């Protein structure tokens, strides 16, 4: 009951009309900024921090949270409508989000994304209220060996993402991993695969790769006969999801919440891992898994829910342990420090009224995001009414600005062009793109945790099986990999259907 009282106190402090206006403005500005190319949530929040400087602690942090939600959702809008992800975490949404746009369901995709974000964010925040302390401790149980085992589970989803040919999925996965190795070795400092180029020392930029592989290669693969009609602007009626679509997305949102929330608790895990694994889970477990990739609502609901659940759950290690689990949370932590607050367990004892006001504002921010964006879906989708040649030119403009602004260097524009061509070649060879993105994200985390684990065990690989959590996780991964073999007969027949 104490918690409830304190939370109500928090709402009372947060729900002043000034704060609501700040939150509303933050959400709106954040969404607009998130839609613009080259500005993801981290840069977006950093850009708008000056606006919050003169506010009191509660107001400032409420506005920052709202900006953060807004920019993250803005990235989703471009993923769905323009096939150009604004940030890593919504990269996987482009697959089914843009496919939905192509069949005239852009409005439904955006609405589901907003609702999913709301659901994931709200449930994660409830978790923060109900059991922050034990949950924070739970995240600590994941040491390097468990982290590695989690990555094994993630990689095992390659099987799910494989589509028709496991061989091709593995080629795609190996390519992604090799690309992720480019740059300075994160442990010993040796440059790898940089071909003597200084531009490659920092690695190949993830955003440039996904913009090229998904966005540009899509434009390049337009056929003469289809290019003009590749995208259907939705009519007014199709702005909202149908009843079936709602029913289909509910289980996906539940899975997404679980994955995002669980992974968000773990320091060092990024939101893009959550959204990727949520997509993999849909591929593996959804009833409509064979429609994924062709505009299935599950492919939007799962990752978008996971993404926002992750973002909110990542606040739990910040509040309970003082550990910022992701770059965005770090920006938020910077704001805490500016206001003279030290994030960590002492926050609840020394400044409990502010802590609870912040938690209340998380709920408010999530709700505002929903209330603000669902009515605006129609406005956003009207961009699709722009004639095809103009839309293509504008998308190219977005891509160039997006790639250039990663490091303020034309090199990344060339990287994007190169990966556009690679993406086109892979599409032509019928090699799935999703495994490459999966390993591109998981590869560095996997390598780092493997090397840390072996340092802990001093070279003994048994460490992954001696520890109960990592053993269970590895068993799950192995089971996922083996599962297609166990029910070999029927899927095999389906797989050989030369449909595309």
């Amino acid at each position, binding site marked *: 009951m104490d918690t409830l009282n304190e939370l109500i106190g928090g709402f009372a402090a947060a729900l002043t009309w000034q704060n609501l206006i700040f939150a509303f403005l933050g959400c709106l500005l954040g969404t607009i900024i998130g839609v613009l190319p080259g500005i993801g949530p981290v840069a977006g929040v950093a850009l708008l921090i000056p606006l919050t400087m003169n506010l009191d602690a509660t107001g400032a942090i409420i506005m920052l949270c709202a900006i953060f939600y807004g920019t993250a959702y803005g990235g989703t809008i471009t993923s769905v409508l323009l096939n150009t992800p604004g940030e890593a975490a919504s990269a996987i949404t482009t697959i089914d989000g843009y496919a939905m746009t192509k069949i005239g369901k852009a409005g439904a995709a955006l609405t589901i994304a907003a609702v999913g974000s709301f659901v994931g964010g709200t449930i994660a925040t409830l978790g923060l209220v109900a059991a922050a302390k034990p949950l924070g401790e739970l995240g600590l149980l994941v040491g390097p060996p468990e982290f590695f085992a989690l990555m094994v589970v993630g990689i095992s989803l390659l099987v799910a993402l494989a589509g028709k040919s496991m061989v091709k999925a593995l080629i795609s996965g*190996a390519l992604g991993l090799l690309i992720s190795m480019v740059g300075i070795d994160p442990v010993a400092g*040796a440059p790898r695969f940089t071909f003597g180029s200084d531009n490659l020392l920092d690695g190949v930029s993830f955003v440039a790769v996904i913009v090229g592989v998904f966005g540009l290669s899509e434009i390049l693969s337009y056929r003469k006969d289809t290019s003009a009609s590749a995208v259907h602007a939705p009519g007014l009626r199709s702005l909202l999801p149908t009843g079936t679509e709602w029913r289909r997305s509910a289980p996906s949102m539940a899975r997404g919440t679980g994955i995002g929330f669980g992974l968000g608790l773990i320091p060092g895990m990024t939101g893009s891992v959550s959204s990727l694994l949520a997509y993999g889970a849909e591929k593996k477990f959804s009833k409509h898994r064979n429609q994924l990739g062709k505009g299935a609502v599950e492919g939007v609901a799962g990752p978008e829910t996971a993404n926002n659940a992750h973002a909110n759950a990542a606040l739990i290690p910040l509040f309970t342990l003082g550990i910022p689990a992701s770059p965005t949370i770090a920006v938020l932590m910077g704001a805490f420090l500016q206001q003279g607050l030290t994030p960590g367990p002492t926050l609840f004892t020394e400044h409990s009224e502010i802590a609870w006001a912040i938690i209340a504002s998380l709920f408010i921010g999530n709700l505002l995001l929903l209330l603000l964006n669902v009515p605006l879906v129609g406005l956003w989708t009207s961009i699709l009414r722009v004639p095809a040649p103009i839309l293509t*030119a504008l998308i190219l403009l977005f891509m160039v600005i997006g790639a250039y602004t990663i490091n303020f260097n*034309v090199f990344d524009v060339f990287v994007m062009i190169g990966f556009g061509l690679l993406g086109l*070649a892979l599409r032509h060879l019928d090699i799935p793109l999703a495994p490459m993105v999966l390993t591109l994200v998981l590869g560095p985390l996997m390598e780092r945790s493997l090397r840390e684990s072996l340092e802990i065990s001093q070279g003994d690989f048994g460490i992954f099986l001696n520890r109960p959590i990592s053993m269970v996780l590895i068993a799950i991964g192995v089971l996922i990999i083996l599962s297609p073999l166990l029910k070999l007969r029927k899927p095999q027949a389906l797989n050989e259907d030369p449909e595309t």
Partner: protein
Amino acid sequence: MTTESLMAKPGTKGRIAKSVLAGIGAFVVVGVYALVSSLGLGLWTSLGPGPGLFPFAMGALLVAMSVLWLLQELRRPSETPGGADLGLVIAVVVSLAVLAAVLDLIGFQLGMFLFLMFHLKVRGHRGWPSSLIIALAGSVGAFYAFNYGLNVTLPAAGIPFLNSIGL
């Protein structure tokens, strides 16, 4: 890497499509390159896995899978979809590459203006007024919006004359 595969026409039945062969060849080359260069990085050190271990494993996987794929193709060649619209690929890729190459020289405003005009007027056959308005908004407009409205710096011209007239 495998741009040559774009030129390939749809594979004739019963034979492996040229584009597939080219693709497999390219993957083998990348895989072998990864294998060889990761040996130089060191697979194992006194402290555990070295910088070369992961790339080595991935190179090996890539080569093995490419060989497997080749075997599959030999048994039953897959049908490849029709080639892409080559004219479009060249137009988009070359225009993007030229834009990226001259961006630092003639600046974002002029470069993007010409780029957009090419895609709107020349390729898109739009009318002059709409092409001009959109190209100006997307180049000069975007430049000012990003540089001054959002503190995101887009490149100005490197050539002094262009720079001095505000491009």
